[in-house]
């Protein structure tokens, strides 16, 4: 045989080398985070000492750290609440967005009928419809989840629709010639080709998901980290408020990092 391909062993590094590589990358990342943390704390403390900022404007890192330790329980309960809204909302948005984008592959007519409605939902400012949502869904978790769904739905749907349309005409013709049903073509060709696109959508949605869950709490008073920050502020518990801010920032970054990692794993 003349047309030989490079054997797989030549192309890919061994398992061991690969895991070593990953460990080293993790180490580099941990060092990077540690350096950033130290720099932030030093700058923070430095600014407060140098500029003589009063504790009721901005507390020093130590008292925020103390608040983090002392109020761990309250913070954890609030964070768990907000996380449930975020994850539940993104999961529900994912199911809805992928189903609707899937339906679009069935008929172009359907997409022309549904898209304007979806875009209307997208352009309506969430702040404007939130009071309405609170009226309908109450002041509990449901409203938070619905807000997260509304914000997360669009990026996932747009990317999923692009992904479902991404297989080449030949791949679809192949399935047709094999006598495949719409469902078989969908599950065996369109879904696998769309997965990287869908993960891009999840990544884009997750960036705003924590924010929108907290926003919903501000408006409805549901007991999550958003409400914790707001209440700590009105009771002048500034260290607790800042602790809440730190926790929510770390959470949002962690969720984003997780989706980036999942996306990269998948597209390899």
């Amino acid at each position, binding site marked *: *045989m*003349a*047309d*030989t*391909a*490079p*054997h*797989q062993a030549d*192309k890919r590094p061994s398992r061991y080398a690969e895991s070593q590589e990953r460990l080293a990358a993790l180490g580099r990342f941990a060092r990077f985070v540690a350096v950033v943390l130290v720099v932030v704390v030093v700058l923070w403390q430095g600014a407060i000492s140098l500029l003589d900022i009063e504790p009721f404007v901005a507390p020093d890192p130590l008292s925020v750290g103390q608040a983090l330790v002392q109020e761990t329980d309250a913070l954890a309960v609030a964070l768990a609440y907000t996380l449930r809204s975020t994850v539940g909302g993104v999961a529900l948005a994912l199911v809805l967005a992928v189903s609707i984008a899937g339906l679009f592959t069935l008929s172009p007519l359907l997409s022309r009928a549904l898209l304007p409605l979806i875009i209307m939902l997208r352009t309506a400012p969430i702040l404007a419809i939130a009071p309405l949502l609170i009226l309908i869904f109450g002041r509990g978790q449901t409203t938070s989840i619905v807000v997260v769904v509304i914000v997360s739905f669009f990026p996932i749907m747009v990317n999923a629709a692009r992904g479902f349309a991404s297989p*080449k005409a*030949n*791949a679809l*013709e*192949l*399935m*047709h*010639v*094999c*006598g*495949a049903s719409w469902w*078989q073509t969908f599950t*065996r*060709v369109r879904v*696998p080709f769309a997965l990287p696109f869908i993960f891009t959508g999840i990544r884009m949605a997750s960036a705003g998901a924590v924010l929108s869950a907290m926003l919903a709490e501000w408006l409805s008073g549901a007991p999550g980290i958003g409400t914790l920050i707001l209440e700590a502020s009105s009771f002048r518990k500034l260290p607790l408020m800042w602790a809440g801010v730190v926790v929510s920032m770390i959470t949002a970054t962690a969720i984003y990092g997780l989706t980036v990692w999942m996306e990269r794993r998948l597209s390899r």
Partner: protein
Amino acid sequence: MTEIAISGVSKSFSLGKGEIQALADIEITFPSGSFTALIGPSGCGKSTLLRLIADVFPPTTGSIRVGDHGPDAARLSHEIGFVFQDPTLLPWRNVVENVRLPAEVAKIAPRRDPAALTTLVGLAGFEEARPSQLSGGMQQRVAIARALALDPKVLLMDEPFGALDEITRQRMNMELLRIWKESGATAVLVTHSISEAVFMADTVVVLSANPGRVSEVISVDLPRPRRLDLMRDARFNSYENKVREALFGDDMKVPA
């Protein structure tokens, strides 16, 4: 057996507001078990004709018969194997899994053993390889094995080796002839290589463009099995010249 009869077929596509006619008044029969090459300038509708036989879309007018029934019934009873210009393999499946795909979709047992087919196309030992680990020629071999998985009565090929280099292509053509002979299928090959058409086919159908029509049908009366030294034969060259004449006509005499 499986004769393909095309009578009075035309095909138009709507393009925005306008309409273009890809094929007009096509009237050909491909005898059972024969090997036919379709050749013509780009835009002559040769790929369209192949897709009409495979029931990818229906003809605008006219009728097509594949064996005893229409193309739709032939497709649904898995009598048609199709090889595209690019291999069109599913990248997350290995070689054998790709070959098994038609049987999976049809929800029947493969009519030919996927592992044996992989060996038949010269890929023994590569059963577990992913498409990305194979060269272009090897990927196209997988596509041929996949087309044969349900032992089709009709084998349709749309410039299957068009993207390959001349040397690989020549070798693949030899193997394709061997595989076709062994399968007994009625084969239709779309090509834009004159020598490939003459070397492979019993009949070369020359199409002209705008709209696509059959301009000439040349039967190639050369013995089988065909070997590469046939290409040095004077008869081979005269068939090539006939096809060239049919393709270019009076343009042959125009100075460049």
